[in-house]
């Protein structure tokens, strides 16, 4: 039976009142399996950070529920139990100030049962984090590294990273991704990271959730998603215009291009049975899947408006 590190059910979060009300998260249902590397993807203002803030007990859901290891993070003392098991890198990368060394020392004391000095030293070395530079003099990249070092070295059951690559150079980014895969998941820990940098997520994530305008558009294991999505270029007459398998249709001069979101083999067989010719069949990259989903959702919303 799959156990979940993080789960949300019909989660809603609104800000503001009356006409100015913003629905940051709109009926979100997420399932983050324990031991997975889960990438939450979405455009700006998709609701990723708001979801994470609710998971970290920083914001209260307007309705619906959110659970971290089956506990409610919005309520003390359950919140404290949640926070003992979660490492967090916030979007703003704001910390307690001082030098990275002081920050590590401070954070170490909060997690005496799980903290590893060896892992802290390893992260510092790999990320080339300057330990004794005051926080106000640190670049954004080095601030990110300091917070990452704290979160990784505390060896929590769940690591929540909100845009963890902000300001990191390619070398540091590579080192970070290696650290996450080698040291975090090897011990069965769960990593939940949000980003709109698809390439880096694709490198390490095994589960994906794609959000747009507060809603989840797609969720599941990355391999299954890749297997389900396919671009078909088809010629023939009486081609279908709608089907649960079709995500989008693009009619060109001599052919029709389908983006299929589920069961591409069955859909292809149906097309061939109906006399269509498959000119091309190619898998979609995560980036293409993301773009197709976002565009389709946007055009659907425009039709509704």
């Amino acid at each position: 039976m799959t156990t979940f590190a993080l789960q949300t059910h019909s989660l809603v979060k609104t800000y503001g009142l009356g006409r100015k009300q913003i629905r940051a998260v709109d009926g979100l249902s997420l399932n983050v399996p324990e031991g997975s590397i889960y990438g939450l993807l979405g455009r700006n203002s998709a609701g990723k950070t708001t979801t994470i803030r609710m998971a970290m007990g920083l914001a209260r859901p307007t309705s619906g529920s959110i659970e971290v290891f089956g506990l409610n993070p919005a309520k003390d003392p359950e919140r404290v139990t949640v926070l003992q098991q979660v490492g967090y890198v916030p979007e703003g990368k704001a910390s307690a100030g001082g030098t990275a060394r002081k920050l590590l020392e401070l954070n170490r004391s909060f997690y005496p049962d799980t903290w590893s000095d060896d892992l802290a030293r390893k992260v510092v070395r790999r990320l080339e984090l300057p330990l004794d530079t005051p926080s106000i003099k640190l670049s954004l990249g080095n601030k990110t590294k300091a917070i990452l070092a704290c979160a990784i070295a505390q060896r929590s059951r769940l690591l929540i990273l909100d845009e963890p690559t902000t300001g990191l150079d390619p070398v540091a980014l590579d080192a970070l991704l290696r650290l996450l895969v080698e040291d975090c998941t090897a011990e069965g820990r769960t990593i939940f990271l949000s980003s709109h940098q698809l390439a880096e997520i694709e490198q390490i994530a095994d589960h994906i959730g794609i959000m747009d305008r507060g809603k989840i558009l797609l969720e599941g294991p990355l391999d299954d998603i890749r297997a389900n999505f396919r671009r078909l270029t088809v010629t023939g007459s009486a081609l279908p215009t709608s089907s649960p398998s079709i995500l989008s249709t693009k009619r060109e001069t001599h052919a029709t291009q389908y983006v299929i979101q589920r069961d591409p083999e069955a859909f292809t067989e149906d097309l061939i049975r109906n006399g269509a010719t498959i000119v091309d069949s190619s898998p979609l990259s995560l980036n293409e899947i993301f773009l197709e989903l976002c565009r389709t959702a946007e055009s659907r919303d425009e039709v509704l408006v």
Partner: protein
Amino acid sequence: MSFSSQLILVFAIFAPIFIFIIVSNLKVRRKNRQQELEGDVPPPPFEPASEPPPGIFLRRFNQAQRVYLRAQRATARFGGLYAAWIFFVLLSCGLLPQSVDRYGIDQSLPQRVWFSYLSDFATVGGVCGIIALVTSFIALSNLVSISSASFIRTRPLTLRFLFWARIGPALASLLAALIIAAACSFLLLLALYGPVWKHLFENSNSVPVALAPPVQHIAHSNFAPVILSTSVQHAGTKMVFLGSHGHIQAMHLVASLQTSPLRLFLSGITTTLLIFSIVAVLITLRGHFQRIKLITIMFVWCLVLFFEASVMIGGLTSPRLARTLFLYASPGSPPPYAFALIPLLLSIAFLCLAQFQATRLET
């Protein structure tokens, strides 16, 4: 206060900041020079020291709480020391010769010193308000700001603990600063002038009541006004003749005799608590009230400044309001002790409200 006294006052208040900046700069320069001499030495690896054994007070908390409390205590100690210095300077500047003679009236030295000391003690109430405002702002703004609070609010500590662990040391350091400054200034008064409050009748035209002229005679004479008072060192009631132009002298002497230093001190504490707690409520405003937060804080700031100005000018605050809130801002008749409970209870209520707001999540 004379111009030279004001200059000394301003210089003395800001001197620790200048010294701190100069010393820090020197340290940085020395460190840089040392690094230049040594060349590129790699920084020492991350080798954290183990936690020192907790004292009696910290023993009851878990390690995470102890660490947080230690950090707060260190900050509070630093702030408290500076606040104590400011209070001490303000309380002691009344002992400067220029301040003692600032009214230019013909009184004995003990009378002038004691009145000057009490006057400055009273004005410190307003300063307490300003320092309480700043302290409350510093203590709580990092706990409720969405961006900067996300680190500490996601550590395994209850929100209630986070709030009181910030409020407690800040408030304690502020009150300790006031107590230390009051004690030190009083010791300075004793060292410089001795127990002046015991010598308020010396060198004044006082005679035992039995030897005093009849009241009708006094009323038509040039010796006005007349004070009846009980002197501690001279048994029995005495009559004090202040001279023909002595109404200011009389006011000062009456004020000196009526003023209760203990209640002045208590008023400083209640004012500090009240302003601190009001600002705490304003800073922790969340959600829809957040927009008006800055405006209201500015408003309270103006109120405190107005109060300060009214203390200096005198008579601007409503006597009833001052009495009700135990604001004892000038030497003279003290408010009854019972009224101190009003600001005290209000402060507790405001702090509870601030805690309720600070422990709420983003809505």
